[in-house]
């Protein structure tokens, strides 16, 4: 498969939530870097996109932002998961797993069908 993955609506949001859950408070760059590393650079066409996702999550009150100091001693906004965000992540992750499992089954069955 060539190029970056086409992300489904909300997928990036879920990735961001999961990243924050795994790593604790992070600035935007940290989140973007982590998503790239974990996904093997298959997502994130450009890193700027992450901020649209961050504002959406903030507006839902799933994450919050605070000023902090970065590794190289610069002021940067650090994002962290809220209680509601943790709950939302659990629910969405469970849902995502069910969807992928079902999709996987469905896709496998249809390819077997065409193989006959």
């Amino acid at each position, binding site marked *: 498969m060539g190029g970056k993955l086409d992300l489904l609506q909300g997928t990036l949001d879920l990735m961001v939530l999961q990243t924050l859950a795994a790593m604790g408070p992070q600035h935007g760059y940290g989140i973007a870097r982590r998503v790239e590393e974990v996904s093997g650079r298959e997502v994130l066409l450009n890193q700027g996109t992450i901020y649209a996702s961050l504002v959406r999550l903030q507006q839902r009150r799933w994450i919050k932002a605070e000023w902090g100091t970065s590794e190289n001693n610069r002021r940067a906004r650090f994002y962290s998961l809220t209680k509601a965000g943790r709950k*939302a992540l659990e629910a969405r992750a469970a849902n995502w797993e069910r969807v992928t499992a079902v999709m996987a089954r469905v896709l496998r069955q249809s390819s077997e069908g065409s193989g006959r």
Partner: protein
Amino acid sequence: MSAWLARTLARFAALVRGRRLDEAVEQDLAAHLNLLTHDLVARGMDPAAARREARLRLGNVASAIDAHRTARSFRWLDDARRDVGYAIRTLGRAPGFTAAAVATLALGIGGVTLMYSVIHHVLIAPYPYRSPDRIVDLRVRTDRGGMHWNFRPNEFLDYLEQSDVFESVVGVDDGTGHLLAEGIAENVEIVGATPELFAFLGVQAAHGRWFGPPDVQAGAPRVAVLNHRTWTTVFGSDPSVIGRTVRLDEDLRTIIGIMPPRFEWEDADFWIPVPAPVRTQPGDTSAGTLAFYGRLRPGITVETAEAQLTALVKRRVTLFPDEYRSFVRQSKTTNYHAEVRPLLDRTISGFDGVLYTLFGAVALLLFIACCNVANMLLARSSAREREMAVRAALGAGRWRIVRQLLVESLVLGLCGVAVGAVLASLGSHLLQDWMPVLDVPAEARLRLDVPVLLFAFAAGLLATVAFGLYPALHGARRDLVAGAAASSRSSTAGRRHRRLRGTLVIAEVALALVLVGGAGLLTRSLLHRLDFHVGFDYRPIFVTEFEFPPGTPAAPAVLRGFYTDLLPHVRAIEGVQAAAVASAFPTYGVRSSPITGPRPVAGEATALVQFTSEAYFDTLGVRLIAGRPLSAADVAASRKVAVVNETLVRRFFGGDSPLGRSIHLDGLAKSRPPVPDPDFEIVGVVRDYTNSGINQPTDPEVHLPFSIPGYPARYLLVRSAFPPERLATLVREKVRGIRPDVALSQPGPLEGSGIRSDWPVNDEHRFPLVVLAAFAITGLGLVALGVYGVIAYTVSQQTREFAIRLALGGERRHVAGQVFRTTCWLVGAGALIGLGACLAAGRVLASQLYETSPRDPVTLAAAVTVILVTGAVACTIPARRAMRVEPAVALRHDE
């Protein structure tokens, strides 16, 4: 709070916090870039290369911010806010244009809003009552014009109990009466109603309480409810009036409540409770009568109710023929039917036609305003061509540009609505006093309320589409190259543009001609109406009658004494030129008598007889031809002298001088009280004035001193410069000093008094004319502006051409001639089309015209002239500018 709700609220909040959120994301992106570069350098990349790589990975900053905006807010709303902000700034930079456009629109929108307000509050919803559209009254009619509406209890109850079309009913007994309170004597309208009246109408008292069934029980104290208007004018809005006892006719009654403003049921000053009807023996006529008002059940039509009640009436007529004898001479063929009349139909008599005509006229005005603004926008769009081309070149989509221009139009439109609403509000105050009283329900109040404002808003939106859409589409169609070159004066687009603007002007001229023509026809019609003579200037004359309290009947002697006392006081009022009393006043003499002169005449020999005080002719302003007028001494001594009119002299004396001769008025010998030996010596001759109806030949008339008991002198006539209301107050004060219990009855101007329909001109005729004339003048102003705009624009586009022509030896007057020709062509074409429209629209006006054809050639020619002159005037400034073109300057300036 759910995540969805939180986000929705946050998105709305983001609309107003846009700038701060932009800063936040910019900070984030800057930090991001810095950290990324830092990382890359740490991994061993050269700093310059690292910065470049970081930019690449972060992506386009602008599009990241854009994505942020999309995510955090409602994109279209945010854009709309941005567009509106931009539109306001753009319009703010051209204050002259903006003011002109807003003023033009405000005139149009204000005008339609005002007329809509009139239609809404007069025709659609004039009444403050509960479900007023279902309130009806009931009358019994015969096919020969007999009519009967005051029902005895049995009849009233039969209609109520034997039909099933009414939800509830109320009985009403109205009449005028005499109010007497401390320091107050007034002739008032007192309406008696069965106790359920206020519940029936569903209106609460503003102060105090209603009356109800307990107030009509035997032994209950007598009460009355006061009209708000009367409370204000008669009682000076004194709140302590509740609980006060006043005398209404013979009864002392306690005021228990004041109704809210606009509650004018049956035009009463006081509502008093009367007992509900109770069945009596058939044929018993001792019980009083009641008029029948009912509220139809929902879904019952007037026709259904009429059919049912007509059947009832027919049955009753056969059962109780005696009850119907009083109002009609019965025969076997007399056909009875019930008439059920909705509330609104009682007052509006053809006035709805007038109002809809005016609404049509003002809609034309709005169209003219829209044409004008569209024209201005088109002119502006060519000036803004460069801006549009640059924006298109920078990637603004066509829709985006259209939207921006539409938003600008919308902002203009809404400003027009706002200013127009203010204009309409001012106008409605003026019109409220101007509306013909008899055609409009007394409850109707003009004001800007929610429905009217919604209408104004809708009109504004519609106007925006009308004037804004084409210029917007037109503005967006410019192609890049032509636009950037910005030389529309040579392009076909420029020509198309000019042609379009020309079309708009033609339309404007045509519409304005319809308005001017309409106003002209109404003016001519009014001139025809005004073309009558009563023989004197009636305008400064005020007339009033007096009413004495019931129970103290005014004997003729008392009445004469009262007038004799009052007259000097009235004459003493500063500003009063003359005052007199009389037994009748123009335009009708009321009493007549057979007359015997010095020689026999052919045919009927009668003369009108007037009993007057001295100064009667001074008051009317009628000149004496010979002899002297009645003097104070004549009146004081009750001398048997007479002043006769010219007609009488011609008829009974031929060419002889009547002075010193005697006439015998036989009728006075039989008058009550009789005048013994009714022979009168003629002491003066007065010029004829109307005494038997306007535009009718004058009858012979005799004026006698009112101190001679014959017919009672009932009227006080005053000539002054005061408005009638003011004079009424002044006279009332004087009366109070003489007889505090005497009230003025129907005070008002001579014009329109007495038999109102006799006066050929009244508010009913002036109202549409004044309103339409105001619209027409406004329309003309707008047309002048439109013509000026287009011609000025054309001249500015042709400056170069003119310069070349002048440089090549062309004459300046030829240049000016060309400007005039262009104007003539536009205005002429418009006038031609408008003339056709006028002829078509005349039919609408025909019903309101008096002795005037809707195709009256003189009027139409005048209207066309007015339009042509307006056009000519409007083009003089641009024409002069064209003449003054300096070739050298213009040609150099052009590039």
